[in-house]
């Protein structure tokens, strides 16, 4: 009943586990990328028009999408300069995770975020970006000294809390998406396979998926803010 959830297609390149590629998650994330690129290309084609003309549908879609992203994430940044540098990164993260979570409502496809490797890699990316900007804006020496604040013996605790950040960040996304997938497959296999899964797909796939992507992006912003302001 649940066996298909943990199933992986693994390409073994060497003897160790490090050299293994998880093909299923890889293909699913390629599909998500293809969807996003095709959508962006389609929107871009709609922009080729005269200023005098009435705005085309695609222009309106693009503007409302940009307004949505701007309203949600623009105020969250610590400073205007940081917003200019990182707004596109955070928006890309949000769009990619949203489409990843939504893609599971198509029968036969599964969310790439359902595989723990992908949320973990996003969380590590946010971890690296936050430390990079912390060092860049505060200066490396001052930033590293910040870990020994307020007292030097707090250093191990501060380091542990830094390591815990990407872990909890990734487990939150993975747990929500995977929990929804487990629930939906139990419902489909054991209860009513007709109407009920569709309703639960709406709730777990669309609603929770969008909320979790939003939360992931906002937490990324707040981790970066903390690193910059420390």
């Amino acid at each position, binding site marked *: 009943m649940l066996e298909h959830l943990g199933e992986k297609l693994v390409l073994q390149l060497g003897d160790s586990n490090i050299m293994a590629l998880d093909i299923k998650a890889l293909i699913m994330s390629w599909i998500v990328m293809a969807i996003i690129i095709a959508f962006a290309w389609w929107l871009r084609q709609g922009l080729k028009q005269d200023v005098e003309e009435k705005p085309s549908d695609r222009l309106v879609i693009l503007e409302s999408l940009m307004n949505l992203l701007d309203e*949600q994430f623009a105020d969250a940044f610590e400073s205007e300069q940081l917003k200019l540098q990182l707004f596109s990164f955070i928006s890309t993260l949000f769009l990619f995770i949203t489409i990843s979570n939504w893609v599971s409502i198509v029968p036969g496809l599964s969310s790439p975020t359902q595989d723990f490797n992908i949320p973990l890699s996003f969380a590590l990316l946010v971890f690296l970006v936050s430390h990079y900007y912390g060092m860049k804006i505060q200066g490396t020496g001052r930033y590293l000294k910040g870990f020994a604040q307020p007292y030097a013996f707090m250093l191990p605790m501060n380091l542990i809390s830094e390591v815990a950040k990407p872990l909890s960040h990734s487990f939150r996304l993975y*747990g*929500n998406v995977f*929990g929804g997938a*487990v629930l939906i497959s139990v419902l489909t296999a054991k209860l009513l396979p007709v109407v009920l899964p569709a309703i639960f797909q709406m709730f777990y796939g669309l609603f929770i998926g969008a909320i979790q992507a939003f*939360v992931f992006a906002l937490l990324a912003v707040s981790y970066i803010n903390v690193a910059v302001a420390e």
Partner: protein
Amino acid sequence: MELSASIVTAAKYLAAGFVMGIGSIAAAYGEGQVASHAIDGMARQPEMEDSLLRTMVIGQAITESTGIYSLIVAIMLLMVV
């Protein structure tokens, strides 16, 4: 099935049930607290609604992580152990 193996299986299912049941109490209570105080704030200052909503969602997501940990432990008990 041998007796010891069936005891292990029973313990696995019981533990998964307890982990999920007890583990979600605190997360649910915490999220309720966050939402109730956010609504208090919104009723008092409706012009703050947008920023309160955003802070509320972040707070709930952080509170939820203990619940998510218990979900992951329960899934590991059922499928991995």
